[in-house]
């Protein structure tokens, strides 16, 4: 359908867009073809049945997925049903399932999607290969009419929801108003013997309407703790050696922040022969932040370096551009 705003936009654009637009109108008004811009951009037919019939398909760069059904994966669907009921998620018209192997993100999981009568998704349940719940996300829109939950009410709801799906986070939680989605975010960071596990967390979103919006449980396998640890100064020294090499002969410099111990995912940020994302167990590391100064700071504000707490080698890092 052509609306006035789009017509105006198209006419204000240069010749090529206008011509194409007019051709589009001609095609549509003459009743010929024009399957529409969304019809077959990637070879999809637009027919849901035909799409679902494709047992294996690429869903994103580096990822493949294939359909699973209650017949061939009864445990996955049973777990989804239990979580749906435990969290009070809405009833669905139909359910589909898929197994996803995502090489780019080094992850593999089962997903069960609930849709409503119109075919719109209303929830997704995601399980790790070992059957553990990774995430349950409610996708319908919160309808807020008047009263909203307080922080304490949201915390009670979050604890109740986690208990219902047998997740018991350790430590103390943080409760923050979600100013962007509405409601509250309740978060527990994971720690192993007092040392944070980078990115691992239990998180619950309580929506503005008081219902649970999502439950997330991210927990990675940890490698054995090294028998001996290098000291903080040795770790900073290793990073300083890198920093000196990076900025030698340039007008840029750097400043080192203090080092802290964390469990981290090794990655190939500084090793072009290694993958940027890996699925190997997390390792104990000193995490040191390098803050570029001079011209380099115009494009990069932070380089984070992971130094293996056992052998002192650099095992990865991250960048804030």
């Amino acid at each position, binding site marked *: 359908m052509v609306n006035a705003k789009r017509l105006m936009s198209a006419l204000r654009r240069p010749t090529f867009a206008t011509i194409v637009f007019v051709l*589009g109108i001609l095609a549509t008004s003459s009743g010929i073809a024009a399957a529409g811009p969304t*019809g077959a951009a990637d070879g999809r037919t637009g027919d849901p049945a035909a799409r679902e019939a494709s047992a294996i398909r690429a869903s994103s760069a580096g990822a493949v997925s294939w359909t699973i059904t209650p017949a061939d994966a009864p445990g996955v669907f049973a777990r989804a049903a239990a979580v749906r009921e435990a969290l009070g998620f809405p009833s669905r018209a139909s359910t589909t399932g898929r197994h996803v192997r995502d090489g*780019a993100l080094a992850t593999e999981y089962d997903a069960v999607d609930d849709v409503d009568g119109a075919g719109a998704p209303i929830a997704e349940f995601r399980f790790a290969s070992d059957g553990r719940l990774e995430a349950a996300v409610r*996708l319908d829109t919160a309808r807020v009419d008047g009263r909203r939950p307080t922080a304490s009410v949201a915390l009670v709801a979050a604890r109740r929801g986690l208990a219902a799906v047998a997740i018991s986070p350790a430590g103390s939680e943080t409760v923050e108003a979600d100013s962007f989605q509405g409601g509250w975010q309740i978060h527990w960071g994971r720690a192993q013997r007092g040392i944070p596990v980078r990115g691992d967390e239990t998180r619950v979103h309580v929506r503005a309407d008081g219902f649970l919006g999502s439950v997330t449980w991210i927990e990675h396998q940890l490698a054995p703790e090294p028998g001996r640890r290098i000291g903080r100064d040795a770790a900073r020294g290793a990073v300083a050696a890198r920093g000196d090499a990076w900025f030698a002969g340039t007008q840029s410099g750097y400043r080192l922040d203090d080092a802290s111990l964390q469990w981290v995912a090794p990655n190939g940020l500084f090793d072009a022969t290694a993958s940027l994302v890996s699925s190997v167990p997390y390792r104990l590391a000193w995490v040191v932040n390098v803050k570029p100064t001079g011209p380099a700071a*115009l494009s*990069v*504000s932070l380089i984070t370096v992971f130094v293996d707490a056992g052998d002192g080698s650099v095992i990865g890092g991250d*960048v804030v551009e």
Partner: protein
Amino acid sequence: MKRAKALLVSALIATSALAITAPNVAAIRGSVWSNSDAFTSRCLGFTDRYPQLMYDQAVTGFTKLGYVTAVTRIGPTFTRSAFLGEVLIDYAVYVHSHGDNYWAASGRPNVDSGFMQDPGASRCNASSDIVRSSAIKAATMGTAYNLVIMATCALGSSTSTMPDAFQIARTKTSTDPEFYLGYVNSTYDSSAYRFEAAFFSYLTGGTPHTRTASAAFTYALALGGYAIPDAGNPFTPNWWGNPDYDGMALW
């Protein structure tokens, strides 16, 4: 130039009879831009591969959403003049670079958000490389945009003037087919890459037109596990636009 346009018109008219029976007659362009040279060993001491990964991911995502990604530029061809010269024709725009809410030429407290063009193969970024929202605003000439993703730091914050450069109001209740995605704080590349992977994966999955960009945002954020630089910079993507828009190319 005139001759080239005349040839283009002739070619389009001549082929229209054939093309009219094909899908995607009304090609809707989405452009993907990624600054990579500022993050090479020449400027950083090592080569950050995330610009290429995020670029590839965005091109794939835009294509699946039905945009014709005729202009996809990574590296030296991502210049300010190229961006400003091309953006008017786009309906979707993706930028990966360093971004910030810079002070406007009129001085504080006025903000003129921007991002860095690629510095090219012989130098690193300088302050003169900023592509400012005021210049983009002028280049877009008040036309509408469907999907704008700023894969940078800071351009999803409440002070960002970037959405307005694309005529997208900072509201979550728009009824126009528009969606702007950005990050509020300083954001690790790994977190933005992971978030956008989930965002595109959700949005381009399932039956066409049944999924919304706002739900894709909810989904991606709920997956969690996003590393943060420090407590002062929690992982906070943000969106503005129409909660019911599906992100797909649309007239």
